[in-house]
């Protein structure tokens, strides 16, 4: 069954005809070729495919494309503005949170959602928020540092720089 959807991806309005069974991940990767969003398992275990849907970090492999109709999607390609990296992206680089980089887009997206809430978190809160993401390279150590750094100086209500 073919369905037409209208949605916004990284600030750009898109209109697509998709199969009703297609996941948002398939649409992002295979139709839009936004390959920064990765597939590590396809069943919601690893978090590599996380994107922002109306500001909420969601596994795009578990989200049907038809549900994205009318929504605003942000992928890792949409975080930097005018060539300037977001605070989260900068922190991932400076804290050494990147190794093979396959899990990185997912972590960066979830961290961006956290940052947009505009307040800092304790270590355990950071861990709980990121618990849906696997990383096999870093032992999570520098990812936690990067996320904490990107939340530094955040106070309630300031909003993030990812949207």
């Amino acid at each position, binding site marked *: 069954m073919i369905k037409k959807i209208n949605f916004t991806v990284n600030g750009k309005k898109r209109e697509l005809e998709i199969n009703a069974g297609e996941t948002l991940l398939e649409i992002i990767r295979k139709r839009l070729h936004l*390959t920064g969003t*990765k597939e*590590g398992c396809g069943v919601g275990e690893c978090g590599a495919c996380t994107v922002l849907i109306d500001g909420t970090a969601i596994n795009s492999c578990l989200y049907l494309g038809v549900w994205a109709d009318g929504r605003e999607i942000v992928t890792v390609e949409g975080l*930097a503005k005018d060539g300037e990296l977001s605070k989260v992206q900068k922190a991932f680089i400076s804290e050494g949170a990147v190794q*093979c980089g*396959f899990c990185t887009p997912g972590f960066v997206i979830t961290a961006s959602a956290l940052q947009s809430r505009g307040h800092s978190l304790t270590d355990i809160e950071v861990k709980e928020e990121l618990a849906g993401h696997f990383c*096999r390279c870093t*032992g999570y*150590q520098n990812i936690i540092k990067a996320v904490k750094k990107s939340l530094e100086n955040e106070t309630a209500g300031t909003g993030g720089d990812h949207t």
Partner: protein
Amino acid sequence: MASGIIGASLPRLDAMAKVTGKAKYTGDYFLADMLVGKILRSPYAHARVINIETSEAEALPGVEAVLTHENVPGNIYATAGHPHSLDPERGDVADKTILTSKARFVGDEIAAVVAVDEITAARALKLIKVEYEMLEALLSTEAALREGAPLVHDERGSNIAGSAGYHVGDIDSVMQQADFIFSDEFETGIVQHCALENHVSYAYIDEDERIVIVSSTQIPHIARRIVGQALGLPWGRIRIIKPYVGGGFGGKQDVCLEPLNAAMTMAVGGRPVKLELTREEYMIGTRTRHSVKLKLKTAVSNEGKLLAIQVDAVSNTGAYASHGHSVMLAGGSKFKYLYNFDAIRYMPRTVYTNLPVAGAMRAYGSPQIAFALESHLDNIAVKLDIDPVELRLKNFNRVGYKDPNTGNQILSCGVRECVERGKELIDWDKKRQSFKEKNERGSHKKRGLGMACFSYGTGTYPAGLEVAGARIILNQDGSVQLQIGATEIGQGSDTVFAQMAAETMGIPMGMVNVVSTQDTDISPFDTGSYASRQTYITGMAIRKAAGEVKNKILEFARRISDLPADCLEIADANIILKDSGSIIMPVAAVALQSYYDRQNSEPITADISNNARVNAISFGTTFVEVEVDIKTGQIEIIEIFNVHDSGKIINRQLAEGQVHGAVSMALGYALSEELLFDNKTGKPLNNNLLDYKLPTILDTPVIGLDFIETFEPTGPYGNKALGEPPTISPAPAIRNAVFDATGVAINRIPIRPQLAFEKFKAAGLLEGGDQVVPD
């Protein structure tokens, strides 16, 4: 070497591309007209294929080809990512065909489909009818070694894939004269690499009729040769390209997909075909870490001097040899450097079974051996009433120790300093005492301290060939292109290579462009990423190439300035006078003239192959504090520290990242991870990330670490192995901490709560015995 680039925590070259999503991995490439390949895997652990009926699948619209053992090349080849051996007697075991007529494990590759999309390919797989003749499934090494057991590979004549070992000294006489003999048995579980990127490749035939394979591989040059062997084609007709790789850990030091992917494109007239494994396929259909059962027998003197050791090991390599017995030989050859035994008898056997194929995985046999040896030493320490640290300090080797079997020598050794630092970081002496007192008060939560040590090699010499290439091209603007055949797979090698080239040439790191993608048509020959070899072997090639380019720049500067080259130096991308430091001209000026000077034009390049005949020994230790809940079997890591002597650290932040990741992998190895199989059918029970129990962020404690920076004279910049070593000692250290906390010696990993609980119960630690159940 005064620029300070070596040793600095410089950010990764590829970090920007990776945080923005620009970094392209194999699966991120979509070619026009690209088809999808899928594999039909055996549902049975051991069965002969009697008949395959493919006509229904072939008739399905959208199916372009159906492949079986009958229509793909039947050459038998070895898959292990090792250099080719000129001596056929020493090569890897060849026991694999592209598709098989005999299923040797649940997941073995019986047939394959190429179709227009994934759904069509999946439907076609279901239409292939395979008739099997069932054979007895050999699901343990005991079953495979039993007299009269069926053979996993008929043509090999035995289920033993390898049994070579070694000996040092006269062990029988040392054992006879010893004050004490201690014996223990250990077992390690099957674990899997679980790189976040599944194995993936795509292949097509180019306009020159050459087969091009883009693959997530650690070993492009080796993959080319193996594809050539598997297809029976000249190696030069194969081209392998390696883009960004999403983690390897040894699993991609093997040729799992490429030959079949090549056969797929050949079957469809050269159209591009992508072969991308699902997570569930990756976890059983590629490689695992060998499960090993070990029996150790050690002779010790009254004073705690280790005199002799006998190691009897049985390793389960699964259905195909892959790296096979090399893993046991490597693991068994590396602990010699740590402790000074007068006599050693090492008796490993590597056994085929009907389980998924074990191959290379981070530290290649050493985690299994170290788990047994380091646990055994703590058992001995308790029996002799010696502090485990003291027992080790009494027996460590020193600089000058020569491997009696190979003559390879320790030239730098900081193991004592590592142990002293580890003791200090965890506050060993004070905590040991206070925990003893607290634990005796009888709470069900007990604290314990443990430690373990390791030694490890850098590269594979003298067992294997060590060769690495580096090519440097000076661009017109004074920047350089650095080409290497060594592969960046996430560990950070490209970044440290750029540091090395910049340091030696006297230019800022920003002027070094590393060509990160390996392409066997273009990249210098290098065997690839394994054995923690690249910063050491490839690093030396880069140092030599950068030195040559520097000399050529200075020589060119002499020609155009008439100043003698030996008065000149390069610093901060300028040619300067050595003595005064005054600037003669920028490197960029020399570079431009080297291209366009009408009389002297000679663009500057260097192309080096470094054949290394050295092997530097890395050392290190883990110290850990655990809290054990006797009632539930839960083991919590309170503090953990790894301290490493990896020689000079080239990039502190990246080095720390290697330790973090390797320790985290070892925590899974020690406490939670294990691939499980139905013990009657051999069907995998938990080949997904959830049930497998890969450590999550919530399971992972703060990982403490430090480096003892010795200077390794054979290393290009004083450096030696780091990538794999930190994954060796955490598991035995944790086991020893549990032993310290509870007095219960658990000799199997992973120590999951159920195993711990059963052991505590059997040891009578649970008041009320049978009535106490966890939670």
